[in-house]
């Protein structure tokens, strides 16, 4: 009788323990992400690394950043499952990649692509003191045609 009782009860303890340890982990990852996005002007959470993206959407964001010659802090969510879940909760955004500028969540691949096409990205970068290479190239062109 006693053994049955213990057997039945112990999984509940185990689950309760798991649950609390998960909650602590969540709080820790939240703080970690908060520090990352607030200490860097541009941060990209992506699949893979800039030299070897492992998802087409992440690759598109890398290519956009490259065109603007923006240096950024990148984090590979495939290397850290805790980060992969944590970032989705932090920004309340369900997909990867995710781009942050000046601590603010800006968007994923679709939004970056549209901001790039509309010229909005150049403006957003300017606001945080980053001059896009596209702007520099534009000015050089105007200068030479004078």
């Amino acid at each position, binding site marked *: 009788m006693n053994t049955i009782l213990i057997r039945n009860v112990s999984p509940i303890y185990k689950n309760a323990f798991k649950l609390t340890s998960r909650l602590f982990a969540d709080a820790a990852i939240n703080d970690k992400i908060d520090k990352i996005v607030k200490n860097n002007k541009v941060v990209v959470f992506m699949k893979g690394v800039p030299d070897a993206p492992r998802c087409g959407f992440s*690759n598109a964001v890398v290519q956009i950043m490259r065109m603007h010659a923006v240096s950024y802090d990148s984090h590979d969510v495939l290397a850290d499952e805790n980060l992969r879940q944590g970032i989705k909760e932090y920004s309340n955004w369900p*997909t990867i990649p995710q781009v942050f500028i000046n601590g603010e969540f800006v968007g994923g691949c679709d939004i970056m692509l549209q901001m790039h096409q509309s010229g909005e990205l150049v403006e957003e970068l300017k606001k945080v003191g980053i001059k896009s290479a596209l702007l520099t190239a534009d000015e050089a062109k105007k200068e030479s045609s004078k």
Partner: protein
Amino acid sequence: MQLSIRTVILSRQMSNTTGVIANSIRNKLQIALQAKHMEVINESYMHNVPKGAETHFKVVVVSDKFDGLALIKRHRMVNDLLKEELQNGVHALSIVAKTPQQWETSDQVIESSPNCRGGFGK
């Protein structure tokens, strides 16, 4: 709303997605956003998933409800409406969210998403 012939052809080719999840996506967006135009495109075939899988989608939604809302807010609306799907197997969701006016003046060509680079399921 009047649609150009090109759009109709395009949507016939691209959005005849009829899976269970595709239908659920279509219904939820239609009801909540009263879309004037909608395409639900299953792009799963571009990825390393079983045939007929419903994991990667692109949705095109044209709605008055997007009027005056920044892109990120429109995307958040769509993401929120499809929360259940995104938590249960839908892994990628690409969104085109336009107002009827923006749609009319755009070229109405929906480009397909970038190719997979093998990160899925890893």
